[in-house]
């Protein structure tokens, strides 16, 4: 399974994503510079965290116009797996691949912590190795993770099972309905504020992120096997 990690000016979790995939799955990963349009050779794309273009204007707003995003949009439309983590989530939202928008955290401060979450939907390609309603711990590190969508959209998300993760305990940013991660309607694009790539081995304080990557690999292997 070939992974692409697009790199924008200001991405800073790109290497962490690569390390996670190599460590957990041992599958090949390429960094793809933001000026490259073509992502056809990849099976999955991980849009990494960081501060693309300094998060100026709005987080993700400037990166979403990079040429590489054309490849990301195409991959998403072809049903390939696209995972946006933190700033990657924000970029996918700005690009219209995921619903809602981010506001600054309700306490106005950047917040870094290890956060309890619950897996609301474990039937996605990204979450099938988790149990339904499983309590997990993932690191968070963001200043603009306060997810917003209007009432109508929220209903749709609930009905379609697009709410994938919720914060448990105290909500670290004020997001609507404690939402921590959402998918697109088709389920092949996932965005989440927490960082699964920062929780893959014991010394990191949690290993709960590893299953997201194993889920993705299993999905792909089954798909290839079926084909």
């Amino acid at each position, binding site marked *: 399974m070939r992974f692409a990690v697009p790199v924008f000016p200001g991405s800073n979790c790109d290497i962490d994503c690569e390390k996670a995939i190599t460590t957990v799955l041992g599958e090949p990963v390429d960094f793809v510079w933001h000026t490259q349009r073509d992502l056809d050779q990849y099976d999955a794309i991980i849009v990494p965290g960081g501060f693309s273009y300094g998060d100026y*204007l709005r987080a993700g707003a400037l990166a979403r*116009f990079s040429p590489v995003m054309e490849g990301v949009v195409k991959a998403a439309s072809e049903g390939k797996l696209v995972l946006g983590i933190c700033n990657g989530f924000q970029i996918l*939202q*700005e690009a219209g691949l995921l619903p809602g*928008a981010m506001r600054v955290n*309700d306490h*106005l401060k950047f917040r870094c912590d290890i956060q309890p979450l619950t897996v609301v939907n474990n039937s996605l390609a990204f979450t099938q190795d988790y149990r339904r309603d499983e309590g997990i711990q993932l690191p968070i590190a963001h200043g603009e993770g306060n997810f917003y*969508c209007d009432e109508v959209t929220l209903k749709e998300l609930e009905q379609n099972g697009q709410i994938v993760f919720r914060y448990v305990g105290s909500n670290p940013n004020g997001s609507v309905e404690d939402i921590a991660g959402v998918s697109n309607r088709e389920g092949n694009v996932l965005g989440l504020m927490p960082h699964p790539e920062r929780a893959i081995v014991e010394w990191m304080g949690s290993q709960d992120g590893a299953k997201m990557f194993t889920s993705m690999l299993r999905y792909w292997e089954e798909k290839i096997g079926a084909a």
Partner: protein
Amino acid sequence: MYKATITVRLKTSVLDPQGSAVKGSLHSLGFAAVTDVRIGKTMEVWISAPGSTEAGEKVEEMCQKLLANPVIETYDYELEGA
């Protein structure tokens, strides 16, 4: 040369965390008479265009494409010769 002053605001239906926090701070500084605060962005864009119609069109387009996020924001602008 024209100067567009663009104001981008959160939609009124969207809770404004910054506005609420600033309101709270103003209250604790003794400005009890403040009933609401909303915070938005001001963008000054200098643009060369043959006329104000063209300049306006350009500004409109850049607001829609980039400067405001229609999911949560609204915008308006004023144009002046500069």
